[in-house]
């Protein structure tokens, strides 16, 4: 099997299968939780639940990840706190605002959108990779994180790191031939897509549940979330 064939397979049939597994798996995970039932909250509210939800998202998305002193947490290690935010920022920019990825979206969805200049995307990708390494080191040395990390947590890190780093090397044409790098990147992406429904990387979907619940709980009590 030549690298050309590997690439054709990885971005062709395997990618399709991975997408189907990803979408099907996530749909299953979603249904599973939805079907557990949602009891009605009969508690009379003191404040506005809707206002709580809006504040919950504003704080969660805009303010939270980048300001270590908000809520006074991780004050002993603000770099790690910021790393989490920067990793997610880099990831989203690369996936949605990188031209190459937008074109993949376009081929899947049928429409595209404006993207950012390559140097910006490239820098943010590098930042995200460095942030991931910092987070890994922290997970290795922090006693609490070591205690709560099982095989799944280490695997999560690795499966996310592979597409990031192969993508970066590919953009810079380092060490290997382009086809080889592209193949490795696609294989890593396929693995990630298949793995997500089996893991907690799926938190991006449940994020919207937990932050909404957080907002309603605090909002109903008239407290800023």
């Amino acid at each position, binding site marked *: 099997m030549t690298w050309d064939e590997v690439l054709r397979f990885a971005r062709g049939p395997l990618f399709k299968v991975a997408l189907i597994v990803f979408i099907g798996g996530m749909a299953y*995970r979603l249904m*599973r*939780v*939805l079907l*557990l*039932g*949602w*009891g009605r*909250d*009969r*508690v*009379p509210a*003191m*404040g506005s639940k809707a206002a709580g939800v809006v504040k*919950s998202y504003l704080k*969660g998305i805009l303010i*939270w*990840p980048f300001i270590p002193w908000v*809520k*006074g*947490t*991780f*004050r*002993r290690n603000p770099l790690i*706190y910021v790393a*989490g935010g920067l990793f997610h920022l880099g990831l989203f920019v690369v996936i949605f605002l990188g031209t190459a990825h937008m074109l993949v979206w376009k081929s899947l969805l049928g429409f595209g959108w404006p993207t950012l200049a390559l140097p910006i995307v490239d820098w943010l990708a590098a930042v995200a990779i460095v942030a991931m390494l910092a987070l890994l080191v922290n997970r290795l040395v*922090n*006693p*609490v*994180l*070591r*205690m*709560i*990390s*099982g*095989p*799944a*947590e280490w695997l999560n890190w690795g499966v996310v790191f592979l597409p990031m780093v192969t993508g970066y090397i590919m953009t810079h044409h380092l060490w290997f031939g382009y086809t080889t790098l592209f193949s490795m990147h696609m294989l890593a992406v396929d693995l990630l897509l298949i793995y997500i429904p*089996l*893991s*907690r990387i*799926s*938190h991006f979907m*449940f*994020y919207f*549940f*937990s*932050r909404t*619940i*957080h*907002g309603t*709980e*605090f909002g109903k*009590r*008239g*407290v*800023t*979330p």
Partner: protein
Amino acid sequence: MLATQEALNQFVEETGGWIASQLEACTRCGMCTEACHFYLTSGNPAYSPVWKMELLRRAYEGRFTVSGRLKLALGIEKPISQSDLEAWRTIDYEACTLCNRCSLVCPMGIDLGSLIHGVRGALAAAGEVPDDLEQATQKQIEDGSPLGVDLDAWRDRIDWIQDEWDIELPIDVQGADTMAVFTSIELMKFPSNFAYIAKIMEAAGESWTISSKGREVVNFGLFEGNTEHTVLFLKRIFDAAQELGVKRVMVTECGHAYEALRWTSFNLMQVPAGLEVTHIAGVLGEFVEQGRIQLKPGAMDDGTITFHDACKIQRKGGHIKEPRMILNILAPESFVEMTPNKEEGICCGGGGGVISIKEADQKRFDAFELKIDQMNQIGAQRVAMVCSNCRLQFADCVQHFGLDWKIYGLSQMVAESLAGDGDAGGVQPAKEG
């Protein structure tokens, strides 16, 4: 299957998506760790909030998820064992006040307090409740009070309070608007609170009563996490309210009782229709705002004074503004906030039943060091609060650490600063029994 595993399954089934989606959202980032006062003062990794709910995660994944079942089958994950229960009994009952500060810090916004409370419930189902808490609960079931104050003892104490402070407490008044429900802590340790609140009610012209049947607002069932007991104790109060035909139940200076009555009861049982549940903090704010009571401005201006936010009354109860409004009237020159404060305030360390567990004493003393730091930062030696449980912890720690602090209940401050009431009219706090 262990009773705990069974109870956790049931907890997930009953709460459904509310709990499941939050468990699914946790990425084990560990950020909640440094929100916890027990962790910060001990450095014990097991006190991390995410670890406190670990049993629930294991039970949920092992029963409700494919990957969890796979892990169990492959032996990567082990079923919950008896020794797990003993370990989690210590960390969830002795090193957690269910203050829920961690949920504000969680990037996913997971309501960790509720999840840990669920674990407590499952431990209770297996009989793994600390002895002191268990005994207090039994006393509340049998005598009507965790301190063992039965009806006769209660009447004696109420008579004594009326004599001592020369006040009249309206007992079992049919058709009163407000039924005030006190705690045994107030009855036995801070009896002057009855006098202060009576004085305020009178000044405001409120039609109110206390009830001999709903005489205990404390709810040890909530501490345990035992729904059956929680409902039993709630029902006593709601039945009394219904019999007297009152419009609202006013929880006095007690945090978790407010949590139980105001925020938990409606989802656990049938609360009498139209009955309102309020807290004294809210009622005091209402009286001042509506001009039903007049306060002497600056009456408490005598050296820096600060306010301690109770987890169940401020962070989880929403009464953040009222105490500050009152303090800004009474001590406009000397009221200073601690940092962090309001919804982010640091817990006293004695809530959630912790103060009633002997084995937890050292942990709550350690946790209190954060409050000492906070007070020292602003150079305050006077602190107000609106929760008797916090107040008990403060009083005990002041003694333990030999601090020269003055601790005020909000009702006390208000009652002592009522305008149009000569200096001699104040309730004398020196007579605490």
